[in-house]
């Protein structure tokens, strides 16, 4: 299906009348494929398939979304990120928390939406203040070259001492502006939420019964994804100035910050994790999300936007020299990747019934990086393939014979090494299983303005 759609994009009948046809042909097959998931879901969740196999199929699904979204960052934009589990954690926790507190058994989509909206407003205000401060810092550069650095140090000392003061007494002293500001934001968040909740609940109740639960679930997925995307943006802006190994270490550190922040947050359950979380994710939802994620990331990667993202990967200096805003493209890839990692996290937490911060550690990030690298950098189908192989392989090894079980992780590691030796550029090495149609046209269409822009 994918290959046929991409063929239809060829502008064979000229640029003027192919537009709507292209749009229709590329978007109509998607819901049809999603419909096919229902009989499949019936099989997977049936008794004959068994809960053990069902669980493996589900794990494959989460890993496909994670691998494909990291492929956009590591493979297409060439920014080696080791922090994907961090974005997954953001999505997982910020879907699980409102699912427990505000969703009322997935019956209250609007209250859930309100949670994300309030969160957005509060983050917006906080972000605005920080942005303003940085703008002032940048302005101070015109007075003296090293003034911004000096002011930044002073600001940090002020903030830290402020928090230290507030920590020493029961009541935050009046002069602790930063701590009080933070408290004020938290207060604004909870009062906004509290004042809006009853109205949102009443409005939700007015919605027809059958739509409430799926809508609520969708809100949680997209909300979790957006939160991860916002974190990706905040993390990405400074981190993407770094390159290669340095960026990898920075993203690793930032994802650890996320994990440890969650570990120390009481409302999010601390080190013990959040439990119980209402379960909603099933086969159809998960694989629906898998297909949508693959299609959307495919469309970004093999579009003019993706072409520019790849150009920045190939040569940043040349990309800037032809007028590409290199930072913008790197951040775009990073944010889209983080969004889908957040969606995967939300799907995961609403499937597992309980999550702990320990799950989202370095181990998980590396697992996803291995999938992307083994699949072949710059290949979406490779990432899908590798996610399937690497999730199923340990389980297959477990089942071969009882003797193998003890050595299965050794065999698994050996297989990884052999695969990288045999195919050093990954399973598919930058190729796709179906045509990607980038830079393939029909006959050149002469334009009225003459052959070349002057």
């Amino acid at each position, binding site marked *: 299906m994918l290959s046929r759609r991409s063929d239809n994009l060829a502008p064979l009948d000229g*640029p003027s009348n192919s537009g709507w046809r292209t749009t229709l042909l590329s978007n109509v097959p998607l819901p049809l494929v999603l419909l096919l998931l229902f009989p499949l879901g019936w099989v997977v969740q049936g008794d004959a398939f068994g809960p053990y196999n069902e669980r493996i199929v589900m794990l494959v699904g989460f890993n496909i979304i994670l691998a494909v979204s990291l492929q956009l960052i590591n493979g297409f934009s060439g920014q080696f990120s080791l922090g994907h589990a961090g974005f997954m954690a953001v999505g997982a926790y910020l879907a699980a928390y409102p699912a427990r507190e505000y969703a009322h058994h997935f019956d209250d989509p609007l209250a859930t939406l309100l949670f994300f909206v309030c969160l957005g407003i509060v983050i917006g205000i906080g972000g605005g203040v920080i942005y303003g401060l940085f703008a002032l810092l940048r302005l101070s550069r015109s007075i003296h070259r090293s003034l911004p650095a000096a002011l930044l140090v002073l600001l940090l000392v002020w903030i830290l001492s402020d928090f230290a003061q507030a920590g020493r007494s029961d009541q935050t002293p009046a002069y602790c502006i930063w701590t009080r500001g933070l408290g004020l934001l938290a207060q604004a968040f909870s009062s906004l939420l509290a004042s809006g909740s009853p109205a949102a609940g009443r409005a939700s109740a007015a919605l027809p019964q059958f739509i409430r639960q799926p809508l609520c679930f969708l809100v949680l997925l997209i909300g979790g994804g957006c939160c991860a995307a916002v974190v990706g943006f905040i993390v990405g802006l400074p981190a993407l100035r770094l390159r290669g190994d340095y960026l990898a270490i920075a993203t690793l550190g930032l994802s650890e910050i996320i994990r440890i922040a969650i570990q120390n947050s009481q409302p999010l359950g601390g080190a013990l994790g959040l439990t119980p979380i209402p379960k909603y994710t099933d086969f159809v939802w998960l694989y629906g999300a898998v297909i949508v994620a693959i299609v959307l990331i495919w469309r970004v990667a093999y579009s003019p936007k993706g*072409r520019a993202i790849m150009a920045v990967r190939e040569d940043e200096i040349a990309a800037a020299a032809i007028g590409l805003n290199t930072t913008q493209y790197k951040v775009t890839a990073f944010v889209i990747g983080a969004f889908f990692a957040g969606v995967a996290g939300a799907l995961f937490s609403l499937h597992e019934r309980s999550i702990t911060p320990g799950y989202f550690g370095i181990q998980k990030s590396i697992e996803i990086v291995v999938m992307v690298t083994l699949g072949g950098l710059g290949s979406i189908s490779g990432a899908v393939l590798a996610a399937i192989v690497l999730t199923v392989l340990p389980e297959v090894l477990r089942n071969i014979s009882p003797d193998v079980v003890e050595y299965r992780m050794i065999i698994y590691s050996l297989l990884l090494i052999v695969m990288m030796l045999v195919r050093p550029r990954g399973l598919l090495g930058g190729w796709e299983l179906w045509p990607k149609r980038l*830079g393939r046209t029909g006959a050149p*269409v002469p334009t009225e303005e003459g052959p070349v822009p002057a």
Partner: protein
Amino acid sequence: MTPAAADDVLRIESVGRTFGGLVAVSNFSLTLQAGQLVGLIGPNGAGKTTCFNLITGVYPPTSGRILLGGQRIDGRPPAQINRAGIARTFQNIRLFQSLTVLDNVAVAYDRSAERGLLGTLLRTPRFARLRASTESRATAILTTLGLADQAHLVSNSLPYGGQRRLEIARALATSPKFLLLDEPAAGMNPNEKVELMDLIRFIRDRFGLGVLLIEHDMKLVMSVCEQITVLDHGETIAVGKPQEIQCDPKVIEAYLGTTDN
């Protein structure tokens, strides 16, 4: 000077750049009109490429100013300077190697990629139209430079001369007013060099560009350029027509060294 004419002048006014204590370029001035072909020559390490990097914003100059059509462009980031109308090629070829020849040009031509995500995600009609028109324009540019047959090859599989031409095609795709070519003939055989000379003249005439050319091949420079600036140790030692430069004692000294007293 009329305002319209002022728009087509690249004026570099006593620009300098130091790296720590090293003076890479000092007091470099040059005026480039649209349709003019100016050469920039000098021995290795004279600061020619640094001049290009200063003009295109790779580094900001430490002194002096650069004006494009009366507007200051020095200190702006490279992408903005390109959008203002200055395109360049690189001494060591910098293509987007794993992209096809066509994509190398299309990515330079296409500014629509920076618009919102929605069109990309939903493949709206506008998205399809823009994509089709971009690709036909990119193909047209490739045709002009004789690369249309190789449009769907991966760009690093082109022969050396082809890669140089593709870099020029990519620079032209950004619709510049001024084109800076950094040693376009390096590594070319004599036949390719003759073709290149014709090509440089052709694009100058076809698009009315101002071309600034760094080149070591004296035959090429002397035959193509209308005016030449000679750099040595970051300083301008001579400016003039090719014939004048050829007999300038300072230039001969810079290239061949002094005769013993």
